[in-house]
C-alpha cells in the first residue's frame, strides 16, 4: 500500500507554523508516507498567487510525491476564481479553503462561485473544518450542497470539540453524499470508527495537517482505530487516490 497523506501545508504561515518541501518529504519518509496533498499556508506578507506557485513548483520537483492544492481568498471575488483557474492550469489538483484564517463564513454566498468553479474544473474542494463561526459542520454541509457531484473534503473530522459535542453536526454534514472527512486532530477514535460504519469507508481519509499537527502522531490515529485491512487501505490510500485523481500505483 502506498500511503497518501490527504493534507499538509507548505510555506511559512503568517500565523506561525512553517514547513518546507524538503522537511515535508523527510517527515513523510520517517512515517512511511509516499505521497501527500499539499496546500499553501496563509502567506506572510504576500498574496496567494505566489504561495500557490511555490507549492506547484515544490510538487514539480518532488517526483510526484507532492500534489498541489490551490488556496484562494473568497473576499477577492472574481480574482479568486481567476486564480483558481490559473493554478489548476499550472497543475493544482484541487481547491483549498480556510474559512478561519481568511475570515469568511464557509456558506457565505461569496464562496459559492469559487466552489462551483472548482466543480466546473472537475477538481475537489478541501476545507479547513471545525472552526467556530467560520467553518462549523453544518455550514460546511451547506457548502457541499452547492456542488453535490464534486467531492468536498473536510479536515479534522469535519469538526473540533474537545467534549465531542460537534460530532452530531458532523454526521449531519456527512448526510451529503459528497462530503468526506479527514482524520487530522480527531481524538475520538469512536467517531472515526462510526464514520466508517455509518457512512462507509470511502468517506474517511488519513491526513496529518502538518505542521499544524504532528506528522508522526497523526499517522498513528489510523493504526490505532479498529478498521479492517480493506477499510484501512481505503483510508490511508485508496480514497485519496480516487478523490484527487491519482494514478493507482503498485
Amino acid at each position: 500500500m502506498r500511503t497518501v497523506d490527504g493534507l499538509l501545508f507548505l510555506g511559512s504561515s503568517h500565523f506561525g507554523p512553517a514547513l518546507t518541501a524538503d522537511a515535508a518529504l523527510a517527515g513523510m519518509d520517517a512515517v512511511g508516507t509516499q505521497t501527500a496533498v499539499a496546500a499553501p499556508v496563509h502567506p506572510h506578507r504576500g498574496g496567494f498567487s505566489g504561495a500557490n506557485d511555490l507549492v506547484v513548483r515544490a510538487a514539480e520537483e518532488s517526483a510526484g510525491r507532492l500534489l498541489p492544492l490551490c488556496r484562494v481568498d473568497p473576499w477577492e471575488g472574481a480574482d479568486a476564481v481567476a486564480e483558481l483557474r490559473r493554478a489548476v492550469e499550472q497543475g493544482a489538483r484541487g481547491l483549498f479553503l480556510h474559512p478561519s484564517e481568511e475570515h469568511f463564513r464557509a456558506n457565505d454566498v461569496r464562496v459559492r462561485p469559487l466552489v462551483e468553479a472548482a466543480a466546473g474544473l472537475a477538481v475537489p474542494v478541501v476545507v479547513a473544518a471545525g472552526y467556530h463561526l467560520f467553518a462549523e459542520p453544518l455550514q460546511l454541509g451547506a457548502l457541499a450542497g452547492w456542488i453535490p457531484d464534486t467531492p468536498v473534503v473536510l479536515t479534522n473530522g469535519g469538526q473540533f470539540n474537545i467534549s465531542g459535542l460537534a460530532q452530531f453536526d458532523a454526521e449531519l454534514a456527512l448526510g451529503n453524499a459528497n462530503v468526506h472527512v479527514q482524520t487530522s486532530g480527531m481524538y475520538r477514535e469512536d467517531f472515526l470508527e462510526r464514520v466508517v460504519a455509518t457512512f462507509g469507508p470511502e468517506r474517511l481519509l488519513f491526513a496529518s495537517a502538518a505542521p499544524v499537527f504532528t506528522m508522526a502522531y497523526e499517522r498513528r490515529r489510523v493504526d490505532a482505530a479498529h478498521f479492517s485491512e480493506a477499510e484501512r487501505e481505503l483510508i490511508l490510500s485508496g480514497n485519496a487516490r480516487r478523490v484527487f485523481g491519482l494514478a493507482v500505483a503498485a
Partner: protein
Amino acid sequence: MIIDMHMHIEEVASLGWQMSADDCITAMDAARVDAAAVMTLTDLPGLNPRGLELIAEACESHPGRLYGFVRLNPAHLEKAVGLLDRAITELGFRGLKLHPVSTLQHPGGSATIALIRRAGELGVPTLFHCGDEPMTTPLSIAPAAAACPDATIILGHMGGYFHVDEALDVAEQHPNIVLETSAMPYPDKIGEAVARIGAERVIFGSDGPVSSPALERQKVEIAALGEPAAALVMGGNAARLLGLAA
C-alpha cells in the same frame, strides 16, 4: 507503573452512552496501562442516579486497576457535598470531577469553589474538563485555583485544541494546577509543559475508552521527555495524587 488519569464508565441508554469497566480494562490492557482513574459522563445528581454505585462497583471489581472520581453538579451544593464526602470517605474514591458544560456552573462560582475546597480538605484532587467551550477555558478555571490554593486542580485536556498555551500560562501562575494530556493533539506541548512547570505537574490521561489509551500514550512517548520526567508523567504523579505512592 503506568496510570491513565482520565477514563469514563457510563450507562445512559437515552444518550447512547454505554461504556463499561471491562471496556476500560480492555483498552488499558491494549495500551499496557496498569491503572486508571474512572468517572461517569454524567453529573450527580443527574441523568444517571446510579452513577456513584456504577463507579464504586467497577473499582471493586477491578481492585488495583480502577480508582473512582465522583462527578458532581455544584448547583446541588448540599447534595453534592454529601455525595463527595460519601464517595471519598466510605467508597474509597480518589477525586472529584467537574464539567461546567454539563452543569452550567462557572468554575469561579461560589458553589464550585465550596466543592473544590471540600475535596481539598478530603485530600483529593479536582479534575476539570478544560477545553475550548465557555466556562471550561484555563482562564475560566484560574479563579478557582486562586481561591483554593490548598486544593489540587487538574486541567483535563490541558486546554483542548485552542487553549493549550493559556493552560500553560495559568499553570505557571498557580502552583496548585496540574495539566492532564488527554485528547489535545500537540505532543510538543507536553514537552513544553514539563519545561515550564516541571514534570511533577503533568499527568497522562486518555479520555478513553472512546479515545484510545494506546494512541494517547504514544503522544506522550513522541514528546520524548526522557527520564525521570517520563516516569512521573506516565504514572508517578498520578500515583501520588491517587494516594498510591509508597
